[in-house]
């Protein structure tokens, strides 16, 4: 008999297809796990809607459940339940170590250009806030590109959504 804890543990082993330093659980895309006899239901809440990694994530979760000897059912939630605030503290730290500045926490109102242009975003390499916005968009929709004036290193900044 598969337990919920065993499923969570298995899911925590699956790396994000695009940023493998962080697991799907740390990314916060698994909203719930429920076990009914040999059937495991996972509620999966996608990140960016056009993210090509979503299909891969889904397949990997199904395979992980099947490897536990259970029958997977992955339900994709199209609601508003994922935000960058769902990335775990461990996940944020792992992102920083890999050179990705983690997303600032969400606030009441949407971010403004003025806020993003302010030098308050911290460089993941040297920790300086002397950074500037180079491009709102980056290698994938979830990231912007910033430049650190202190260590002269361009870096990727996760967008807050």
């Amino acid at each position, binding site marked *: 008999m598969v337990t919920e804890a065993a499923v969570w543990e298995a899911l925590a082993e699956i790396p994000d297809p695009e940023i493998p330093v962080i697991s799907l659980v740390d990314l916060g895309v698994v909203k719930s796990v429920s076990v009914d006899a040999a059937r495991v239901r996972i509620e999966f809440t996608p990140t*960016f*809607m*056009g*993210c090509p990694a979503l299909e891969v994530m889904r397949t990997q979760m199904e395979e992980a459940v099947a490897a536990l000897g259970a029958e997977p059912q992955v339900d994709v939630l*199209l*609601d*508003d339940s*994922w*935000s960058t605030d769902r990335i775990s503290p461990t996940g944020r730290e792992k992102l920083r170590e890999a050179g990705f500045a983690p997303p600032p926490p969400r606030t009441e109102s*949407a*971010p*403004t*250009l003025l806020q*993003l242009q302010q030098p308050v975003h911290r460089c993941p390499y040297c920790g300086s806030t002397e950074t500037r916005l*180079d*491009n*709102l*968009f*980056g*290698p*994938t*929709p979830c990231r912007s*590109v910033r430049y650190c004036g202190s260590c002269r290193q361009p870096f990727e900044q996760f*967008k807050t*959504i």
Partner: protein
Amino acid sequence: MTRAQAEPRTELLLALADDELILGWRNSEWTGIAPFLEEDVAFSSIAQNEIGHARALYELAARELGGDADSIAFDRRPEEYRCAPLVQLQLVPDWARTIARHVLYETADAIRVEALKDHEDAELAGIAAKIEREEVYHRLHAEMWLERLRSEPRYVEAVEELWPYALGVLDADLRPALAERVGRDEVEAVERTAPGEEFAALWAEMTMVRRSAPVGAQW
């Protein structure tokens, strides 16, 4: 599937999804040829987001219409699409008109999505809230370009030309809000009608791979 009226909710989903898919397609035409690298990246990302929104909306529509997101996106005849004339225009390689459309569309879309967030249908409201989180960045990008170009004669002329098209993105009840936000008077809108030749060429290219594969092929 025909252009016969579907349920009102599905009609709404299709119009919105078709706008996002076709604008995403048009935006992607800048990939590789934008004025500089940052804009290649930006327009490609925006295109990817818009097509992602279309996919989610088609998936909801598929529950009524049958099939899946791909079959609704690619298996209809050109005359069955509901997209607004604004998104159909092929504007490459005209950057001024492209930015004018970007600014006008994102402004109109914000009004539409805000209204949808309050929809009594919880699924629609949820998907609108999720779309809105990503659209914020499209608007910031548009705003940045508006600041740069607002007094350029070519940009001003492009907004003049595209304004009636922008109004046509929204239902009549939302148009006054757009006029106010853009700071222009309402004029006669270019309404959604069966798509024309410019769209037919896009459709032929967009569905080419799909049509070349046997029915039921898995991707």
